[in-house]
């Protein structure tokens, strides 16, 4: 029986992109279902009743949720072109850094993005500190695991796209070539990689979406 692979995603979800890239790297054919999260499909709610979020990978009718869990599932199931390192220590470092990316780095960049002007300096310090930590990890490497794209590149992939969008909206430079030479190179290499470059969501649509989102947050948290 032929394998059936479906991916529930939205046009802009950075978490869903991780799975798009992973499936492309592995050469897996799949069906895409685009969701409107303001009007979730019954299928999405059936496959992800706990969170109702994207991405959800459905493999032969069985759903897998949470992007980093899905990445490991894809790697466990289709063993060619491995995403994670084979060595247990290297693998544990990859998992550690992916968690850092989502728990600390992304949060601090988001905090900066929605900060009121008076809070921006403090928020920027935290974001830059976390970016510096990532910069250190890239020293002497083209991609996080060496010469080829792997798990951590997919986990951090959102940086390559989202940071420049945030920089444009806020008219500031977060990742400059002088302070972040390795991260800047990585961003360029990753953005242009053949497997990655055709998957980015339309930039103008993203700018509008994030601008609107930012305005909503700033309005809701207006200081007295």
């Amino acid at each position, binding site marked *: 029986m032929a394998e059936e692979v479906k991916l529930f995603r939205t046009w802009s979800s950075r978490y869903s992109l991780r799975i798009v890239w992973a499936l492309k790297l592995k050469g897996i054919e799949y069906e895409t279902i685009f969701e409107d999260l303001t009007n979730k499909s019954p299928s999405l709610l059936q496959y992800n009743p706990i969170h109702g979020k994207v991405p959800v990978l459905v493999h032969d009718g*069985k759903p*897998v949720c*949470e992007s980093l869990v899905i990445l490991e599932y894809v790697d466990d199931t289709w063993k060619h072109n491995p995403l994670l390192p084979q060595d247990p220590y290297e*693998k*544990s470092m990859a998992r550690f850094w992916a968690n850092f990316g989502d728990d600390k780095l992304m949060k601090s960049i988001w905090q900066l993005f929605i900060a009121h002007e008076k809070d921006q300096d403090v928020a920027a310090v935290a974001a830059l500190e976390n970016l510096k930590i990532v910069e250190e990890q890239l020293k002497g490497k083209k991609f996080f695991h060496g010469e080829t794209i792997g798990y951590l590149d997919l986990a951090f992939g959102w940086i390559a796209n989202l940071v420049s969008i945030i920089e444009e909206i806020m008219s500031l430079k977060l990742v400059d070539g002088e302070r972040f030479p390795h991260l800047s190179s990585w961003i360029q290499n990753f953005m242009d990689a053949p497997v990655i470059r055709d998957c980015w969501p339309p930039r103008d649509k993203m700018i509008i979406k994030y601008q609107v989102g930012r305005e909503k947050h700033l309005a809701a948290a207006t200081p007295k």
Partner: protein
Amino acid sequence: MAKDDVKLIGAWPSPFVNRAQIALNIKSVKYEFLEEKFGSKSELLLKSNPVHKKIPVMIHNDQPICESLVIVEYIDEVWSSGPSILPSDPYDRATGRFWAAYIDDKLFPAIRGIGTADGEEAKKAAIEPVIEGLAYLEEEFIKSSKGKNFFGGDKIGYLDIAFGSFLGWIRVTEKMNSVKLIDESKTPNLFKWAEKFCADNSVKDVIPDTDKLSEFAKVLMAKLRNPQN
């Protein structure tokens, strides 16, 4: 080949540290437990986990591994000849990892929320998401145990460790707030599982006794309300 040198930086009340201890016990790995003093962080901890400065940190042949679930998976992969912790099927592994993430991201903060809720109304509101989460886990237990004693089947597995490590704190929360969370009538499978889990050889000396943990919880709450230098 060098003999395995395993150290675990931790503290007895931490459920995250308990996860690493249980995994090491399952694999019969001898390790040196370096107890952190409550309220301060050792130089070794700061050096081994400079990013988060948190416990647990496992140091294996001088290499530090951080984050409790990362440590558990590492232990399973390195000591592969011992009883396996993660299931072998990719889908079952994904399911276990999904629920472990749910426990860390949603359930544990909700349980903590009961302890910090002020007043009856707030407590009632705080208890609801915990009851909901435990109902999900009751369902998951039925699916994944397939009639056996543990989430992992015949023996303790990844999700047993991820969830079971919180049983000490769940019991403290029940005791200090006069509420039943893992209820024999509402979550009968979890109720039975909890007893079996805590009695298991790999677990019984790890999960702290409820009275001892309650005393610690009172000290912790007092410190949180009156932080001193």
